C-alpha cells in the first residue's frame, strides 16, 4: 500500500498520450487559425496593397526555409523510426540534424527580419505608417504570424533537445518512445503551419 510515491497511479497508456497530442495540435491550429482569419479579412479588404507588399519579400529565402523545414520534418520522422528499431546512435544523429536545420531556419529568419527592420519596416515605424493602410496590415500580419511561428520553432528546438538528452540517457528507447513520437508530431505541425505561411506571404502576389 505504501509503495506509491505521492500518488498511486503508475499508468502507462501510449495511445492516450498520442490522442492527447493530437488534441493539443488542434488547439495550435486554431490558435493560428485566428490569425489566418484576420489575414483573410484584410487581404480581402486591401487586395492591391497586399499584392504589392508581398513582392517586397524575398522568395529565395522563403523557399530555402521551406526546404529546410521539410527536410527537418523528414529527419525527425526517421529518428522516431530508428529508435523503434533500437538504433540509438542513428537516432541521436538524426535529432542533431533536425536541430541544426531548425537553427539554420532561425538564422535565415534573423537576417530576413533584420533586413526589413533596417529599412525601417516594423510595426508602428514611421516608414511603415507613411505607406498605405494595406501595407501596415500586411507587415503587421507578417511580423505577427512569422513571429508566432518562430516562437514555435524555438519551443520545438527546446523539446527536441530534451528528447536528444532522453535518448542519450536511455529513458527513451525502443520500448518506450511515445514522447519522441509526440515531439515529431509537434514538429510536423510547426512545419505544416509554415507550409501555409510561405505561399500566403511570399508566393501569392
Amino acid at each position, binding site marked *: *500500500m505504501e509503495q*506509491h*510515491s*505521492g*500518488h*498511486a*497511479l503508475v*499508468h502507462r*497508456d501510449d*495511445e*492516450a498520450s498520442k*490522442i*492527447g497530442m493530437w*488534441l*493539443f495540435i*488542434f*488547439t*495550435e491550429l*486554431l*490558435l*493560428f*487559425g*485566428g*490569425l489566418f*482569419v*484576420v489575414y483573410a*479579412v*484584410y487581404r480581402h*479588404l*486591401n487586395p492591391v496593397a497586399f499584392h504589392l507588399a508581398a513582392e517586397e519579400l524575398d522568395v529565395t529565402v522563403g523557399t530555402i526555409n521551406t526546404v529546410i523545414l521539410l527536410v527537418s520534418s523528414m529527419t525527425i520522422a526517421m529518428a522516431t523510426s530508428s529508435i523503434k528499431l533500437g538504433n540509438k546512435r542513428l537516432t541521436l544523429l538524426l535529432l542533431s540534424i533536425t536541430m541544426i536545420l531548425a537553427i539554420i531556419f532561425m538564422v535565415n529568419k534573423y537576417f530576413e527580419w533584420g533586413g526589413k527592420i533596417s529599412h525601417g519596416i516594423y*510595426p*508602428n515605424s514611421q516608414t511603415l*505608417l507613411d505607406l*498605405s*493602410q*494595406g501595407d*501596415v*496590415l500586411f507587415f*503587421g*500580419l507578417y*511580423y*505577427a504570424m512569422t513571429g*508566432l511561428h518562430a516562437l514555435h520553432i524555438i519551443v520545438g528546438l527546446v523539446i527536441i533537445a530534451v528528447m536528444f538528452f532522453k535518448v542519450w540517457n536511455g529513458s527513451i528507447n525502443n520500448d518506450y518512445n511515445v514522447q519522441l513520437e509526440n515531439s515529431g508530431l509537434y514538429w510536423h505541425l510547426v512545419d505544416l503551419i509554415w507550409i501555409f505561411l510561405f505561399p500566403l506571404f511570399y508566393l501569392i502576389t
Partner: protein
Amino acid sequence: MEPNYLEYKGKYKGIFAWIFSTDHKRIGLLYLYAVGAFFCVGALLGLLMKLELIAPDKTIMEAQVYNSVFTLHGITMIFLVVIPGLPAVFGNFLLPIMIGAKDVAFPKLNLLSWWVYVFGALLALSSQFMGSGPPDTGWTFYAPYSFQTQSNVLPAVMGAFVLGFSSILTGLNFIVTMHRMRAPGMGWFRMPLFPWTLYATAWIQLLATPIVGITLLMIVAERTLGIGFFDPAKGGDPILYQHLFWIYSHPAVYIMILPAMGAISEILPTFSKKPIFGYKALVFSSLAIALVGYFVWGHHMFTAGMSGTALYAFSFLTFLVAIPSAIKVFNWVSTLYKASIDMQTPFYWATSFIFVFMIGGFSGLVLGALATNVHVHDTAFVVAHFHFIVFGGVGYAFFGAIHYWFPKIWGRMYDVKWANFGWLTFFIGYLALYGPMFYLGLVGMPRRYFDYLPEYHGPNILSSLGAIVMIGGLAIIITNLIISSRRGETAKANPWGGSTLEWTVPSPPPLENFEEIPVVDKNPYEYK
C-alpha cells in the same frame, strides 16, 4: 483498507501534500478553494456596485472607480470562477470516480493546469495593484478602447490568456480520460450525464479557447507594438475584434452552463428515485448545444454593424440553440412526474435552477430577436439576462452540486436546516436583485453606468436590497458548509440512495477510488 484521500500521507508534508498532489480529488479541492475565494471577492464587488446604485448620483464611489469595479467583477467571475467552476472543481473530483477510473489520464498535467490557473489568476489580479490604475474596459476588452486607455490592461489580458491555457489542458485531459479509461462494461451510453456534459464542454474548451487566446495576444501586440489590427487609424477593424472575441466567448457560456446542466441531471433522478427521463435526448442535446453554440456569436453584435444576411443568420441560429436547452428542461420536469420525491437541499437547488434558468432562457430569446434586441441592447435587461443564466444557471447548479456531493467529498453531513434556510434567503434575495433589472432595462436604464435618472430609483432600491439579502444568504450557506466540513456528522457511503459509481465507494473515497476497477453491467440511473 486504503487510507482515504484526505488523510493519505505521501512524499510531501503539510500544504505541499496538497499543492504538489497529482490526485484528482485533491486537485478538485484545490480548485474549489481557489474558485471559492475568488467568488467571494467577485460577489463583494457586485455588492459594492449595487450599493452605488441604491441612489442616483455618487453614493459610495466615483465613476472611474465604478468602471474598474465592474471590470474586475467581470474578469473575476467569468475567467476565475464560472469557467473553471464546475468542470475543474466537480469534474476533477468526480469524473474519474463516475466512470470507474483511478485518476484522470494525465495526472501531472492536471496538477500543472491548477498551477497555470493560479499563475494566470495572480497575473490578472496584479493589474489592480501595479502600473497606471486598474483596468476599466469591462471584461470584454473591446477595441479600440482596450489599447487606448491609460489603465493597466496588459496584465489582465495576459492573465486571461494564461487562464485559457489552463482551461484547454483540463479539457484535453478529460477527453482523453473518457476515451481511454471508462470501466469495463461502461459503453458511451452507460456513462452518467455529468461526465457526458463534461465531454461536450471539453470539446468547446479545446476548440474555442485558442481563438480568444490569439485575440488577446493581438490586443497585447496592439498595446505594446501598435501593430494596427484593430486600430481604424491604421486600417484595422474594431468590429473584427468583436467577432473574434465572441467566437470564443459565446461558446464559453456553454462551457459554463453545460456541466451545470449535467449536475442537475445527476441530482434530479437521485431525489426522484426514478431513472432520468430521456437519457439519450439529454446526451444529444448536450452535443447539439456544443455544436450549434459555436455559430451564434453574432448575437452579441446586432447593433455593431453587420450585413442583414448575417443578422438573420445569427438570429435564426440563436433561436435554434434554444431547442436543445428546452429539451433538457422538458426532460428534467418529466423526470419529476409521478416520482417519489425526497425533498432535500440539493433538490431545492435543482428545482430553483430550472425556474431561474427558464427565465434566463426566455429573456435570451428577447435578445436573440433582432427587433427587440435593438431596444434593450446595452441596458440593464442584458445584465439581468446573463446573470439569470450564468449566476442563476451555473451558480445554482454549483450550490446544488456542492450540497449533493458534500458527504462524498468530506465524509460528513452539513446542517440541513441551515442549508435550507440559506437557500431560501439566497433565492429571495436573488429574485429581488435581478428581477427589477429586467424592468429597468426595458424602460431604458443603460448598463455599466454608475448613475441614473431619478425615475429609475424605485426598482434600483429593491434591487440593491435584494443584493444585501442575497449576500446574507451566501454567508449562511458558505459558513454552514465550512463548519460542517470539519464538524458535521459522519456521512454514509450513499446517503441519498444515488445509483452512479461515486456512491459505491466509501465517503471520503480512498486514495485510488476503487480497490478493484468495477465492471459496469447496468445503465447509470436504475433505482430499486
